[in-house]
């Protein structure tokens, strides 16, 4: 894929940190994503998401009003497909990095370590946009298939040890086993 069209994408961002909130908003606008709703609590998200308007959720791991896992489980068990299958990218701070495994087990598509750099966020959104990741419904888990792999992160490409799945996104197709 040579170009990416964010013009019709709607994103919901939950970010209580006002600086991170401002930076993420500016990054997304730089991509060309204009339909952006920035909120600070999980409660607001629960009111807005059932409308089915959003194509992407970016959320901080530490919410002021509820546990992230609680919001994720609500999303992944929601009766509406537009909510249940929503791509979710979680943002996590230095002090909360131990929550990555918990978040994965609660059903996020991808985890980004803060501070968020434009290149890192872009690549993680592309990961969340991949069409070849099935949704799993089981007793103890609902969310994107966790048997999902892509290229080894290139430490030269990022300030953080984040994945850079662009090549996998470009080359995605049946049979790659991701």
């Amino acid at each position, binding site marked *: *894929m*040579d*170009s*990416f*069209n*964010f*013009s*019709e*994408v709607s994103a919901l961002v939950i970010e209580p*940190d*006002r*600086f*991170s909130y*401002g*930076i993420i908003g*500016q*990054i*997304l*606008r*730089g*991509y*060309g994503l204009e339909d952006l709703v920035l909120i600070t609590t999980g409660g607001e998200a629960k009111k807005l998401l059932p409308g089915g308007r959003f*194509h*992407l959720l970016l959320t901080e791991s*530490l919410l002021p009003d509820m546990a992230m896992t609680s919001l994720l489980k609500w999303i992944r068990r929601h009766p509406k497909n*537009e909510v249940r*299958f929503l*791509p979710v990218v979680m943002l996590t*701070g*230095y*002090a*909360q990095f131990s929550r990555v495994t918990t978040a994965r087990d609660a059903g996020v598509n991808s985890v980004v370590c*803060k*501070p*968020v*750099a*434009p*290149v890192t*966020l*872009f690549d993680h*959104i*592309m990961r*969340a*946009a*991949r*069409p070849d*990741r*099935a*949704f*799993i*419904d*089981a*007793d103890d888990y609902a969310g*994107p*298939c966790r048997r999902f792999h892509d290229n080894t992160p290139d430490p030269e490409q990022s*300030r953080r040890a984040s994945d850079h799945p*662009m090549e996998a996104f470009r080359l995605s197709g049946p049979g790659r086993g991701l």
Partner: protein
Amino acid sequence: MAVKVTPVPNRLGTLLRKPGGISRDMALAAAGHNVERLREEFVGAIPGEIAALEELLAACGAGNVSPDILDAMLRRAGQILTLSGTYGYDPLDTVVKRFCDLAIGMIEKKIGDAAPVGVHLRAMRLVCPGAPELPPDEIADMLAGLSRVHAHYGVGREG
């Protein structure tokens, strides 16, 4: 309940693939430019964020700090890390991460001594934007001092 595997129609992917978009390089350049436009305002806010940490500590009194206050300080420190990491203030970034390691360790080990917290806040002031720039050897000495504090309390990487 049996495990059900459902191929998902990815609305996001479908929209991103529509014609008329921009290249990855163009998107990243525009995003980087937008972030830079916030630099002056956001970097200017860092001293106030450190002051907020100092106020939290000062409110404790009696040389003790509670786990709740440490938790509140960790959240606030995360905001400073957003700014130091985004705008390239590496010494401050390192000191704030050391502070986070300390606070996490103190919560885990139920340590309530406010003194090591105060030491880290003073170190933040030394490498805060607007402070006189420290030579690299003085920064190294300061970080070594913080490491000794961590070792004394048995927290962080030295713990």
